[in-house]
C-alpha cells in the first residue's frame, strides 16, 4: 500500500488535488497572459496528474531548496563547484524516499506553478520565469526548480531514470523512481529501448506516468504519427500497464497502489484533455501546443476567464479553510 497521510482521508485528498490543480491552471494562464504566450494546454492536461503525484503517490520529504529560486550558477564543469540541480525542491535524497524525474521539460511552467501551490517555491518565484540569468527557464534544465536531469532533448530522461532505479536497487533502497512523460516521447525509439531494458533487467522500482493528451507540436498525434495502441504496445514490452482518466485523482492514485516490490516497471497512461478547465481553448484545436493570443479581443476574453478563475478559487479556499485543518502539502512520506 502506498502510505498516504493518515490524517487526511481519500475524500480530502481528492479535494486538495482538485483545488491545487485549479490553482495551477490559473497561474499558468496568468503567465501566458503576462508573456503573451505559454504552454497552457499542458497545464490543462496535466494539472491533476502532477498534483496527484506530489500529493498522493510520491513519498517525498520537505523541500531542501530556497523559496526564491537561485540564480543560474554556471554550467556543470570541473572548474565550477557552484553548479546544482533543482532536485532539492523535491526533498532530500534518502533510501526510503522516492525520486521524481521530470521529462517533458517544456511543461516547466506547470511544474513551477505546482511547486508554488505546494509551498515548495515562494509565491513570487515566477518573477524570475524566462528572465536572463535565471534558473526558472522556459524549457527547464537540470538546474531548474523541481528538475533533476537535463531532458529537453525529449525521451532521454526515462533511460537516465532507469539508471537511477538500477542504482537504487543495487543499494537495496526501498524508495521508488517516478518519471513523468508526455505522449509525444513515445514516438522516439529511445523510449522503447528504455522499456525493453527496464523489463529485461526486471526493474520494478520505476513507474512512469504519461500525460496522454493526444497532442504534439504539429497537432493531433493521430495525424502526425500515431503511437496507438499504446497500452498494448507497452504490455507487449512487459510493463505493468494501467489506463486511467488523467483528471481522476483516485484512479491515478489507485494505479500506483502497492507498487515497488515487483519485478516489472509500471506505466500509467493518463488519458487527458488538453483543454480541461479552459473550454475556450477548444476553438484553437488542433494547434494547442503553444498558446499565443492572436487578437486583443482574444486576450481580453482569456483575461476575463482569469478573473473568474481567481474568484472561484477565493471562494473555494474560504470554504475549505473552515472545513478542515491544513495538512502538510506534498509530503506524504
Amino acid at each position, binding site marked *: 500500500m502506498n502510505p498516504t497521510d493518515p490524517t487526511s482521508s481519500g475524500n480530502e485528498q481528492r479535494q486538495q488535488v482538485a483545488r491545487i490543480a485549479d490553482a495551477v491552471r490559473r497561474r499558468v494562464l496568468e503567465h501566458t497572459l503576462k508573456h503573451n504566450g505559454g504552454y497552457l494546454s499542458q497545464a490543462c492536461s496535466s494539472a491533476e496528474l502532477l498534483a496527484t503525484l506530489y500529493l498522493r503517490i510520491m513519498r517525498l520529504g520537505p523541500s531542501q531548496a530556497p523559496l526564491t529560486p537561485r540564480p*543560474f550558477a554556471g*554550467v556543470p*564543469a570541473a572548474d565550477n563547484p557552484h553548479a546544482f540541480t533543482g532536485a532539492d525542491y523535491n526533498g532530500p535524497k534518502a533510501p526510503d524516499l522516492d525520486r521524481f524525474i521530470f521529462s517533458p*521539460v517544456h511543461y516547466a511552467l506547470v511544474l513551477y506553478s505546482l511547486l508554488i501551490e505546494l509551498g515548495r517555491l515562494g509565491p513570487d518565484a515566477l518573477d524570475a520565469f*524566462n528572465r*536572463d*540569468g*535565471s534558473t526558472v*527557464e*522556459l*524549457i*527547464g*534544465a537540470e*538546474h531548474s526548480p523541481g528538475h533533476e536531469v*537535463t*531532458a*529537453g*532533448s*525529449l*525521451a532521454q530522461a526515462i533511460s537516465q531514470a532507469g539508471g537511477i532505479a538500477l542504482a537504487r536497487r543495487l543499494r537495496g533502497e526501498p524508495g521508488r523512481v517516478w518519471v513523468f512523460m508526455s505522449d*509525444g*516521447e513515445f*514516438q*522516439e*525509439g529511445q523510449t522503447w529501448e528504455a522499456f525493453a531494458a527496464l523489463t529485461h533487467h526486471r526493474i520494478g522500482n520505476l513507474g512512469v506516468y504519461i500525460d496522454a493528451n493526444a497532442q*504534439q*507540436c*504539429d497537432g493531433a*498525434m493521430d*495525424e*502526425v*504519427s500515431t503511437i496507438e495502441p499504446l497500452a498494448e504496445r507497452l504490455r507487449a514490452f512487459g510493463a505493468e500497464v494501467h489506463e486511467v482518466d488523467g483528471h481522476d485523482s483516485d484512479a491515478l492514485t489507485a494505479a500506483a497502489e502497492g507498487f515497488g516490490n515487483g519485478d516489472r516497471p509500471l506505466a500509467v497512461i493518463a488519458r487527458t484533455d488538453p483543454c480541461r478547465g479552459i473550454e475556450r481553448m477548444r476553438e484553437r484545436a488542433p494547434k494547442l501546443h503553444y498558446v499565443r493570443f492572436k487578437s486583443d479581443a482574444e486576450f481580453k476574453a482569456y483575461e476575463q476567464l482569469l478573473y473568474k478563475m481567481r474568484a472561484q478559487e477565493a471562494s473555494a479556499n474560504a470554504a475549505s479553510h473552515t472545513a478542515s485543518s491544513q495538512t502538510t502539502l506534498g509530503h506524504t512520506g
Partner: protein
Amino acid sequence: MIETVTRPHRDNLVRWAAQRPEVLVLSADLTASCEADGFRDAYPQRFFSLGMAEQNMMGFAAGLAREGFFPYIHTFAVFITRRPYDQLAMSIAYPNLPVRMIGFLPGITTPGGVTHQAIDDVALMRVIPNMTILEAGDATDVESMLDVAQAVNGPVYVRQLRGEVPRLFPANAPLQFGQARVLSRGDDLCVLSSGICTEEAMRATAALAACGVSISHLHVSTLKPFDDPQISAAIAGARHGVIAMENHSIIGGLGAATAERMAEEGIGKRLIRIGLRDRYAHGASRDYLMREYGLDAMALVRAAEDLTGQPLEISEADLAAVRLGTLQAADKTEDL
C-alpha cells in the same frame, strides 16, 4: 537602415519547390517552427510527417534519396546533428546521398537552453566525409540556400535562420557556393565571420574603421568545403592578424577551419577565435548570451585591440549607435 524580412525561408520554399516534383519535405513535429508549414499546405502529397523520431527520419530520407527523390529534412539543428548522428553518417553521408538537412536555431539564437542550442553542429558535420555545410547570415543567404544546396552532389547541412531575419546583402546578390562575401578591404586586420555574427561584426568593424583600423571583412557562408582563395589572400594581407567570429564553439567551426588553413598554408600570423569557449550555454535571451559568452561586437573590438596592440576608445554606446545600411559586397565582380 536594414530591412527585416519575416520568415524568408517559408515563402521561398513554397516558391522554389513549385516546379520541382522530386523535392520532398520531411518533418519531425516541428513543421511550423521550421517554416515548412507553407510547403505542407501547398504540396501535401510531397510532405511527410514522421513524428518526433529523428533517427528514423534520417533513414527514410536516405531511402527516398536512393530512389531519386530529394528529401529536405526540416527540424532544429540539434535534432539533426546530435540525436541521429550515426544514422546521418552511415545511412546518408557514407553513400553520398543528396539529402538536404535544414537545421534551425543555430548556436545561442534560442532561449530554449542547452538542449536546443546547436553550439557544436558545424564541428560535428565537418568531420563527416562527403558533407557540405552552408550557413545563412541574412535573408538573402536564407533565400539562396535551396538553389545552392540543390546543386551539390551529396548531402548538405544548412544552418538556417527563421523568423525575423535582417537583409544585410542585396536581394539580387545571392550567395555563391564556396565564395565568401567581401564586405570591406583593408590591411590591418582580417575578420572572418559567419551566421548571425556577421551583423554583429559589422557594428564593430564600422566603429573600428572610424578609429582608423583598416579591415578586410569576409562573410563566410560555405563552411565546408573551406577552400576559397579570397580567404587566404585576405589573411595573408592582414598586417596584425586574423579574427574569426562565429555563433558556435571555437572548436571545430569557422575559427578552427581558419587555423587549419593558416597552418597548412604556412601563413604565420596570430588568430583570435571568437565563439563559445568550450562551454555549454543555458536558456536566456540572445543578446544576453552574446554578451555573456563574448560573441558580441565588443568582443571583436577587444580582439582588435589585442592584435593591433593599440587601445581603442570604443564604448558600448558607440557600438549601439552604429547604423547599418544594406551592404553591397565590396567587390561583386571578383570571380574565381
